[in-house]
């Protein structure tokens, strides 16, 4: 967890603010200008492994991580406030969790909805970069301007990955470079996380894996989009299983001849 001032100004940290989802960009800018430190609670926090017991066993691995991060960071005195997205821009699960958190902890939980319709574009999603690098940049871009390691070049899609940032980024290593990103992650980069039309956008003819976390309500959407577009529906829980890995490898091999994953 480090300071994250994108403008290079030495500012004193006022509060450590945990965020869930993609809060409005202006809100993030204000927080950073105030000198707050932002922690993305959807992501692993080094030194704080996920602890069970706060949510049912069969529940979204991302939200289990969010809640565990909140309790662990609070116990360590490293969290002052939570900004949680609870609208159409996030998921039903977080809406219920945010309500419960406000009664179960002493941390102020600010419930927000990001219904921004001002698109910032999706150059990372359509670039030549390896898929994992794309996701790291897009996640970073939730509260600061991402800095790609090299200038972005637009690439023709060889494959598609539709979905949210996975709990286990190892799944992203299975895809060839230049794989385009669709679904909610594309909405994240565009800073319009509630844009359902953009979330449903795919390139017809591009072999696409429709990925969801196990126990996520978005699986209904992913399942039916996969059927409509002849893609592959894949659910993964906290870790990529060997079966899920082999299934994705085979799909890419059958559909993108150049990608021999064996």
């Amino acid at each position, binding site marked *: 967890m480090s300071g994250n001032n994108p403008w290079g100004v030495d500012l004193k940290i006022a509060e450590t603010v945990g965020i869930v989802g993609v809060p409005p960009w202006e809100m993030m800018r204000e927080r950073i200008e105030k000198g707050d430190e932002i922690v993305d609670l959807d992501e692993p926090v080094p030194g704080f492994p996920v602890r069970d017991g706060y949510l049912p066993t069969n529940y979204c691995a991302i939200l289990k991580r969010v809640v565990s991060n909140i309790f662990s960071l609070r116990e360590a005195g490293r969290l002052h406030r939570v900004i949680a997205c609870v609208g159409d821009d996030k998921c039903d699960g977080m809406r219920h969790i945010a309500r419960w958190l406000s009664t179960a902890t002493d941390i102020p939980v600010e419930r927000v909805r990001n219904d921004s319709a001002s698109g910032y574009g999706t150059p990372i999603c359509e670039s030549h970069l390896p898929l994992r690098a794309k996701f790291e940049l897009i996640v970073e871009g939730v509260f600061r301007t991402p800095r790609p390691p090299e200038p972005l070049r637009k690439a023709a899609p060889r494959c598609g990955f539709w979905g949210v940032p996975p709990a286990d980024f190892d799944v992203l290593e299975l895809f060839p470079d230049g794989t385009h990103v669709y679904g909610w992650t594309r909405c994240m980069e565009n800073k319009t996380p509630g844009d359902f039309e953009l979330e449903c956008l795919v390139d017809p003819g591009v072999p696409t894996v429709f990925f969801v976390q196990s126990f996520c309500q978005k699986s209904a959407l992913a399942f039916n989009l996969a059927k409509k577009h002849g893609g592959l529906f*894949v*659910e993964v829980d906290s870790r990529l299983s*060997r*079966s899920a890995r*082999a*299934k994705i490898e*085979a799909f890419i*091999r*059958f559909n993108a001849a150049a990608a021999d994953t064996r």
Partner: protein
Amino acid sequence: MKRVVVDGGTCYTKLHYLDSGRRRIVPTRRFFQSRNDYRVAAATGHNAHRTARRRVNELVALAEGTMRLVPDDDFTVLDCGARDVKYVTIKGRRVAAMDWNTECGAFAGQMIDLLQRYFGIQPDRLPRDSKRIPVVCGVLGMTYLFDRVSQGATHEEAFAEFLRGVSHNCESLVGKPDRLYVSGGLCMNRAFLESFSCEVVPLGRFVLVEGLLSVVGRRGLGFDGP
């Protein structure tokens, strides 16, 4: 040392001896106990990574193996193993669709084998017109099965309903074709095959081995074939 190609499944390992062409099925645990007796040219299956450096994806092996055995231009093959089921649909001798139930729905195959042995059930004594119980996964399906027994169903009736639940899941997964080719351990189980509503053609337990021979032989990776 015997030279083999291996389909290393969860419960059973299927071996093809390259020098003699002989084939054998051994429990996977026993295979690993004598692993040093073999030189494995290539492998597929859940345990392939423990078995050989040269590995072939299971769905690739299934597609290639079935095309060696089935002359049809268009068909669907379903591989029913202990741990999961997977299928490939071929159109014009090319892969048109594929899927693999990786998590929910898993272990139904192993449960069929275990339950049949545990209850001592004879397949020809199962009722032919049973309903089905939901088999979300092997364990949840078994819970429903025992609920049915406690409601007064015989073990044969409850087991037949369990089989119908599994075969219904399989048919839904593959898109309900008129004819379905089936491979893997469960294709030797008559009770299971008879629980399908479509025509079922069993291909045996060596389909993935056929695929291995096809892929590895074609690539010429230092492999001199059977």
